[in-house]
């Protein structure tokens, strides 16, 4: 600790703190324009000048100068005020005074400081700039004329997002923020640059001219897309969510969001939202009152409850709140008496609910997101971890670039993560993850690198016995990863003091199920990486409440049908009533034709959704439900983080929350009312008994778990290959998450349609270019898809995201980790 005096206050701060940090800690505000706590100090704007007794004679920038023992700092003297005024006056020389039409007005650092320092008249006058404004991309409008050269956009894009879309170009007064070759902006569209821009040089197009900053009601909530659980602030006006607002003090991610989190909010107030319950009459869905719809559902369920509860099945989306999932389970398991409930197609949660359940005795990851930056070595399964969970991707970027974390990736394609400094990507043939992981374990055993702690864990002998059967040479031949690489990776992993494995799961990754999770658990246990900070295994659930759905056991636990069996049951007629809460199996589940047939065949299908999805179109009753912005409750994100969401707007149309609907149905079935408020329900959830709902606050809480480890040997098999065909991999596109982002507007502006991505060599062979169309034929169907040529895909492997409803890739997938397809023009 270092002791110093700031404005007569005695302060003790960390050795690496700057004067600015020290003043902030003491509650003294030093004005800044170019400083951001997430970024490396810049020192360009010269607003934060202070006087230091020991360095008299010149003013010192507070944001770049480290503290030293006995420093005496003054933050406000006449000379300082003069210098700051000069900076503002100089900036205002070129800055256009178009505050009335600038969206940043009210939230503009330059405006606020100008007001604070009473720069009401400028001593100077000069020509303004006339840079061309970049209107050409759908999400980010760049007006260089308003730029004050703080460089935050370029820095955040480089340091945190690791994309590097911007840089300073030119010199002197002509200096500006430029894009490559000074062209139009073409980037990931995460919008981080907008969030840090202190003025209105970068503005979010979807929010342009929608409202003034001061008129917005700011509601803190949690993002409803992926499982990262980013906190966000919704900007609300007149019961409409108009934007997301950056708050650098929110969450582990310091307010950092990805593109869909920042720009994907528009589904909340979409015109397409369902507003009334619909019931199928004479073959068409017709609007009815809530009472009629609910009565119809209750009657059907009541009948089934008495006669044949097993003919009832229910699918829930892991986007519901914990409280809703709790009621969902209560309705179907306890009241109706069926065990056929599931979510995420069954396979997308197996890693947690079956894999980790057996290996660790818990349905959650033993590690947390904050472990990423504390680790020494990260082993990421698939580069797709960035696409599925972009903000976790930012954490990985920061870990690698700031903390020197050794990043190793086992992946069937390359990707953004693989391009990070010193990252090693072990590119393998599709579907070989399990073989590789077992091979790593074998090397660790063979080279006596296993941790001592492993000996005490049950099942070690059986595991070693299984590993004895692994033929490393064969693995190297099958996977395409050389023996040396496997050895090197295994050694590095075992020898790293702290090593963390990241496994993304989700509907797009059928291969990331129970076995892979267990093989990875075994590996981590063998190397002794479980149970310490910065180490372990982090399973990245796909949706905002995937972890909650696993915790609340929204899956068959007593021999009931899982999702696949429910679909089969519908097809065979064994399932007569299907209740679908928010899932969209037609688009999101593999083998679309089969799912469509099943839904058509089922006796009575109820769908609760925000939109009339392809699944809802086949339902008998459709109920409009509330989005995350219209209700309260809790989500549990990756790393067991329970956080509250808050109601921001009134319900759209007549929509009700799933919680209200479920409580109503339960009341109708049992004749007894149930408590339907979040607080009461949360307290009833057994697995969260360690979490105090009232104390959740803004930060949320991480619930504790006890790991009871066990080795569960899983044998890898050599994936089948088909000669002359391409391996089709499914997964997430960076801009999308599940099927909800299709209504999010922002994501659709940058990634509007189903595409197939292939490498340059394959594109050359097929003679196709970006934007051409290719016929993709599998055993179950054929699609014509737009081509995207990139550097990510190795030869013979193609990729397609699963989110899209039109030409959805799931109409040709098999439900295995790889679907073999033939491509033709």
């Amino acid at each position: 600790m270092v002791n110093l005096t700031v404005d007569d206050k005695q302060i003790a701060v960390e050795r690496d703190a700057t004067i600015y940090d020290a003043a902030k800690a003491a509650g003294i505000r030093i004005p800044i324009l170019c400083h951001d706590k997430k970024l490396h100090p810049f020192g360009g704007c010269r607003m934060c000048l202070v006087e230091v007794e020991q360095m008299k004679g010149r003013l010192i920038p507070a944001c770049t100068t480290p503290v030293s023992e006995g420093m005496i700092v003054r933050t406000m003297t006449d000379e300082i005020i003069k210098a700051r005024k000069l900076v503002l006056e100089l900036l205002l020389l070129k800055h256009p005074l178009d505050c009335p039409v600038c969206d940043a007005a009210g939230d503009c650092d330059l405006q606020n400081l100008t007001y604070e320092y009473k720069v009401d008249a400028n001593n100077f006058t000069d020509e303004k700039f006339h840079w061309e404004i970049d209107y050409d991309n759908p999400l980010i409008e760049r007006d260089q004329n308003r730029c004050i050269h703080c460089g935050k956009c370029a820095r955040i894009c480089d340091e945190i997002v690791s994309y590097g879309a911007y840089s300073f170009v030119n010199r002197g007064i002509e200096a500006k923020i430029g894009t490559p070759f000074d062209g139009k902006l073409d980037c990931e569209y995460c919008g981080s640059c907008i969030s840090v821009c202190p003025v209105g040089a970068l503005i979010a197009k979807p929010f342009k001219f929608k409202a003034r900053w001061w008129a917005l009601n700011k509601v803190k909530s949690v993002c409803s897309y992926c499982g990262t659980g980013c906190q966000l602030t919704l900007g609300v006006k007149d019961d409409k969510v108009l934007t997301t607002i950056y708050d650098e003090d929110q969450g582990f991610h310091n307010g950092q969001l990805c593109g869909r989190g920042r720009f994907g909010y528009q589904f909340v107030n979409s015109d397409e939202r369902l507003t009334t319950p619909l019931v199928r009459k004479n073959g068409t869905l017709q609007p009815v009152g809530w009472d009629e719809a609910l009565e119809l559902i209750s009657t059907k369920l009541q009948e089934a409850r008495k006669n044949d509860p097993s003919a009832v099945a229910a699918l829930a989306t892991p986007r519901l709140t914990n409280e809703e999932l709790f009621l969902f389970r209560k309705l179907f398991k306890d009241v109706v008496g069926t065990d056929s409930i599931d979510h995420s197609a069954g396979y997308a949660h197996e890693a947690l609910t079956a894999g980790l359940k057996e290996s660790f005795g818990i349905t959650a990851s033993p590690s947390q997101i904050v472990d990423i930056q504390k680790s020494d070595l990260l082993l990421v399964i698939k580069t797709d971890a960035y696409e599925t969970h972009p903000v976790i991707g930012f954490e990985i970027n920061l870990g690698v670039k700031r903390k020197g974390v050794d990043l190793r990736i086992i992946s069937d394609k390359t990707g953004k993560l693989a391009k990070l400094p010193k990252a090693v990507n072990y590119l393998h043939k599709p579907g070989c993850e399990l073989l590789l992981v077992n091979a790593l374990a074998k090397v660790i055993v063979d080279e006596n690198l296993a941790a001592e702690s492993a000996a005490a864990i049950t099942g070690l002998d059986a595991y070693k016995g299984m590993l004895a059967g692994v033929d490393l040479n064969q693995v190297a031949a099958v996977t395409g990863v050389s023996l040396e690489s496997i050895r090197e990776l295994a050694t590095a992993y075992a020898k790293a003091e702290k090593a963390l494995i990241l496994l993304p799961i989700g509907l797009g990754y059928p291969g990331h199920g129970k076995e892979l999770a267990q093989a990875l658990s075994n590996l981590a246990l063998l190397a002794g990486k479980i149970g310490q900070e910065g180490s372990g295994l982090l399973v990245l659930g796909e949706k905002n409440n995937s972890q909650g759905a696993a915790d609340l056991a929204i899956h068959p636990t007593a021999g009931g049908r899982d999702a696949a069996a429910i679909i089969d049951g519908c097809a065979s007629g064994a399932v007569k009533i299907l209740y679908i809460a928010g899932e969209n199996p037609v688009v999101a589940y593999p083998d679309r034709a089969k799912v469509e047939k099943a839904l058509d065949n089922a006796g009575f299908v109820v769908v609760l959704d925000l939109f009339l999805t392809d699944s809802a179109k086949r339902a008998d009753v459709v109920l409009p439900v509330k989005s995350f912005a219209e209700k309260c409750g809790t989500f549990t994100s990756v790393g067991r983080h329970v956080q509250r969401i808050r109601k921001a707007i009134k319900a759209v149309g007549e929509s009700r929350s799933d919680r209200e609907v479920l409580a109503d149905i339960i009341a109708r079935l049992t004749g007894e009312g149930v408590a339907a408020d979040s607080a009461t329900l949360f307290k009833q959830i057994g697995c969260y008994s360690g979490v105090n709902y009232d104390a959740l606050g803004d930060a949320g809480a991480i619930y504790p778990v006890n790991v009871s480890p066990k080795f569960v040997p899983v044998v890898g098999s050599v994936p089948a290959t088909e000669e002359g065909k391409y391996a089709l991999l499914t997964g997430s596109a960076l801009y999308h998450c599940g099927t909800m982002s299709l209504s999010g507007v922002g994501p659709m502006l940058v990634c509007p349609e189903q595409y197939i991505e292939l490498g340059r060599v394959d594109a050359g062979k097929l003679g196709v270019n970006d934007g051409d169309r290719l016929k993709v034929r599998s055993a179950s169907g054929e699609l014509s898809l737009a081509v995207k040529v990139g550097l990510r895909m190795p030869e013979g492997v193609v990729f397609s995201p699963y989110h899209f409803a039109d030409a959805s890739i799931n109409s040709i997938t098999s439900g295995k980790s790889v679907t073999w397809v033939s491509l033709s023009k």
Partner: protein
Amino acid sequence: MEQVLFRHNRPGRCVTISEYRAGGGFLPLEKALREMSPDQVQQRVIDSGLRGRGGAGFPTGKKWSFVPRDLPGPRWLICNCDEMEPGTYKDRVLLEANPYLLVEGMILACYALGVEHSFIFIRRGYETAATNLARAIAEARGAGLLGENILASGFSCDIDVHLSAGRYICGEETALMNALEGRRANPRAKPPFPAIKGLWGGATVVNNVESLANIPFIIAEGADRFRSLARIPEASGMKLFCVSGHVRSPGCHELPLGIPLSEIIDDACGGMREGSSFKACLPGGASTPYFTPEHLSVPMDFDAVARAGSRLGTGGVVVFDQNTCMVRATLNLVRFYARESCGWCTPCREGLPYVVRLLEEIEAGRGSLEQVALLQEHVRLLNHAFCALAPGAMGPVDGLLRHFEEEVVEHVIRGRCPFN
């Protein structure tokens, strides 16, 4: 007069390695590697009182001593040959005549600092110098004076010439390091100072060409001998003064430090041109406040010039005669700095063009006394910029307002430039 840097020079052409060696070249290197420890070399440079010739005049040995001996990781030496200060051309003259002196000086510096790889950052326009250097390095390597195991001493070091895409700001040592790393040439925040964390995060020393070229002499002849070369006791060594402007024979001359300004102009350069009389001069390149006739007797050494209210800088003396409009001269200089600002910090990026505008107004006769006051204020406030560029640019403006205020006011009052 004894010459240190020009002693090997041949008229009209570059010296060859055999001529250089015949004249005693590379003997100091042999002597250092055989007889002296790196610490002794460093100590001798400290004792010699050699001060950086690049502009700031910081003692070279002291700069070296800031590199912690026990710092892990590679360390670097960079020779700054991005000579872009208007009025300065000494490094070019030196390197076009004799690149070996620099090569030898750099090897000695590398030896003293424990550097294995060093760079010469040379300005794009200096292609002859760069070619000379490349040849000199190849020849030195061929002669076993550079590369692995130099002269069988066990010490290895190498030199790379980097012909930069250069801009004025690249001469700032931290911007130079950024440029060398392949980044945009913006200065870096100090601290951390380059001696702790510089090029690629390693300890780095950046020295000027002339500073390094002095080292062989210091090693060969000793610190005291070097000190005694200067004209006054507080100075040490020789200095290249490059004189330009209204003198009879402008040129680069090696003269002892501490020599009076008048002697440089009258003796070395043959006095003022026909019909010209001395009005003012920039004593050390474009970023230094003016000297006037009253300063003609000032001994040209770092401290003495500083006491007289200016800086010795690079030793680039630009002389103006009585027909020069000082406002116009200053405007010309500030225009250069405004153009060469990197655009990083507000006072420099926005402030310098504004000063240019003020001077333009005054020069055109549209100025007011308030603008003169505003100019005065800027001289003080632009000191708060990120690096030394803006304060340097304010040097001549400062001199203008201090010594030629009457001339400025005359512009305002008469509503036109009196020299038109």
